């Protein structure tokens, strides 16, 4: 019945109409994203304009943040955002890599599922929980056991020594980076695991067949094959680290200062906004906070664009190698 009805002209035109309506609906949905993004960028720019126009380039180069005299500079939050995210990735990438390799190449079958589920659960923990844990559990441990050790043994070293000097407060840039790294590990390792699993068994088996060790197969077959996916996972983690607010606010020490030590308190863009927006009085103050938001938007955008560019280059290189 249906098969016959499908070729009736009236029905066919109805079907075409449906197709077109569906096409239109999905197109509108896709456009909506662009519209929203444009709207956000526009609103941020409008809101940030009074502060940017008032402080000009000084907004980017000054670390003064004084609501009383209404002088604002974003250098300290920019520095804090970049440094905590960089350190978080530095700590998270090797661990995530290890987790993903173990899960795909080495783990016995019965262990794969529990660890996989545990990672997914870690990704679902709300950030405020990480913040509270960082403040009440991690910070005292770092303060009593880890930081005194760092200060004593790494503090006197040349070159990197100044990164580990000052009083052990327990909270600060280093603690924030540590909490962030724990928060991004599930994201990075989950993506890495998925891309490692896409490596065809034939490739790996031919590696083993040529007498390669597991180590050699991983470094010379799996990693090169999954390179773009690895970078994608890292960028996903970086995106999360750059914008993370609540957990960082709890453990970073919230000081608009750039300390030479990683143990010193600092602040990030999102932490500053979360701390101060609710009680910000005065147009310039509010505008300066929105300008911070616009800067974060710009930084995230740059990071994503850079990642895309890198992936494109890698893709081209892979093609030319073939």
């Amino acid at each position: 019945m249906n098969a016959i009805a499908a070729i009736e002209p009236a029905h066919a035109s109805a079907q075409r109409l449906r197709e077109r309506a569906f096409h239109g609906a999905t197109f509108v949905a896709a456009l909506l994203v662009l519209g929203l993004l444009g709207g956000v960028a526009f609103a941020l720019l409008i809101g940030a304009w009074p502060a940017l126009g008032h402080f000009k380039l000084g907004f980017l180069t000054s670390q003064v943040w004084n609501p009383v005299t209404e002088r604002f500079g974003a250098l300290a939050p920019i520095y804090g955002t970049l440094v905590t995210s960089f350190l978080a990735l530095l700590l998270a990438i090797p661990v995530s890599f290890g987790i993903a390799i173990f899960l795909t190449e080495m783990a016995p079958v019965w262990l794969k599922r529990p660890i996989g589920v545990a990672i997914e659960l870690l990704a679902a923990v709300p950030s405020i929980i990480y913040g509270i844990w960082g403040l009440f559990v991690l910070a005292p441990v770092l303060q009593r056991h880890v930081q005194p050790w760092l200060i004593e043994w790494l503090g006197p070293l040349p070159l990197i020594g100044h990164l580990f000097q000052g009083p052990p407060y327990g909270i600060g840039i280093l603690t924030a980076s540590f909490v962030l790294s724990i928060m991004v590990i599930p994201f990075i390792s989950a993506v890495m695991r998925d891309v490692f699993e896409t490596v065809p068994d034939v490739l790996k088996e031919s590696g083993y067949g040529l007498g390669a060790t597991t180590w050699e197969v991983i470094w010379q077959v799996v990693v090169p094959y999954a390179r773009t996916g690895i970078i994608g996972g890292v960028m996903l983690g970086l995106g999360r680290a750059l914008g993370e607010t609540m957990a960082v606010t709890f453990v970073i020490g919230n000081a608009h200062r750039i300390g030479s030590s990683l143990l010193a308190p600092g602040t990030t863009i999102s932490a500053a906004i979360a701390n101060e927006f609710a009680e910000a009085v005065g147009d310039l103050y509010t505008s300066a906070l929105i300008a911070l938001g616009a800067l974060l938007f710009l930084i995230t955008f740059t990071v994503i664009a850079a990642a895309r560019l890198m992936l494109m280059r890698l893709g081209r290189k892979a093609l030319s190698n073939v």
Partner: protein
Amino acid sequence: MSLFGAKRWSAGAIAVIAFAGAQAADISGAGATFPYPIYSKWADAYKQQTGIGLNYQSIGSGGGIKQIKAKTVTFGASDMPLEEKDLQESGLVQFPMIIGGVVPVVNVKGVQGGQMVLDGPTIAQIYLGDITKWNDPRIKKLNPSLALPATAIAPIYRSDGSGTNFLFSNFLSNAYPKFKETIGASTSVQWPVGIGAKGNEGVANMTTQTDGAIGYVEYAYAKQNKMAYTALINSAGKQVTPDAQSFQAAAANADWAHAAGYHLILTNQPGEKSWPITGASFILVYGSPPDPAATGAALKFFDWAFKNGAKMAADLDYVPLPDSLVAQIRNTWKTQIKGVPAI
């Protein structure tokens, strides 16, 4: 199972009915987070008696001021009073509603709650980074009988914008000219030293876990967590401990009669018993309200709270306004708010 379902359904129905009923008469307000616990406790009791509820969004003083200026709420609440000029420009009437105090807390080995005595200039120098050790002669001078260690002082401050910050920095500004010149008073200030913790709970936690720390929290918080608070020297040169009496003394000794728009900050008030870091939380309503009935309902609630709310306030460690001040506020309502039914 079916019983559970039925129960849930009826609970939902009740919620819907309550919501529909509430819509007609609810009082809407927004602002300061500091008085939120007492406002909601009053609102609960008031609703039981009158059926009129309060929808108060504790979004912060800055948000409260913005919302009342945008006329999206009937009243705004702020921990930082608006200037008389600002009130006149916007047509707002301001009055204090409840009093609270800020208490310095310390974590120094061997020092119990109430044992240490500090004064404004000393605390200001600690937060400026000029006094860095607990055995500094300037602290010793105030505490001749205490054995003070040579521990480094770790100043802890509130990182989120708050009325607590405003009162504390205002107190230090009044007490020590250098603090006023270099830092000043606001809901957020640029602290030259120390670390910022979020909220009362953050400051309390950082202070208890850091050896040699000093911080400042709302009185209720220090009391309920049994923190090592300090005594202070007030502007009359007398030593006072933080409690309801010393907060109320500060409010009673303040010169409200001559404060236009009740613009008065209760730090460093005269009087031998006045706690020097006391503050009032303020309410803002329109002098010619766009919806007189709604503003009238709000004032009726505040009037009820003045009459019946003192016990509830004391339970939560807030301090009710002195009677003379309440009389003055009622008079302000009568003379400055137009078109509102008499209470």
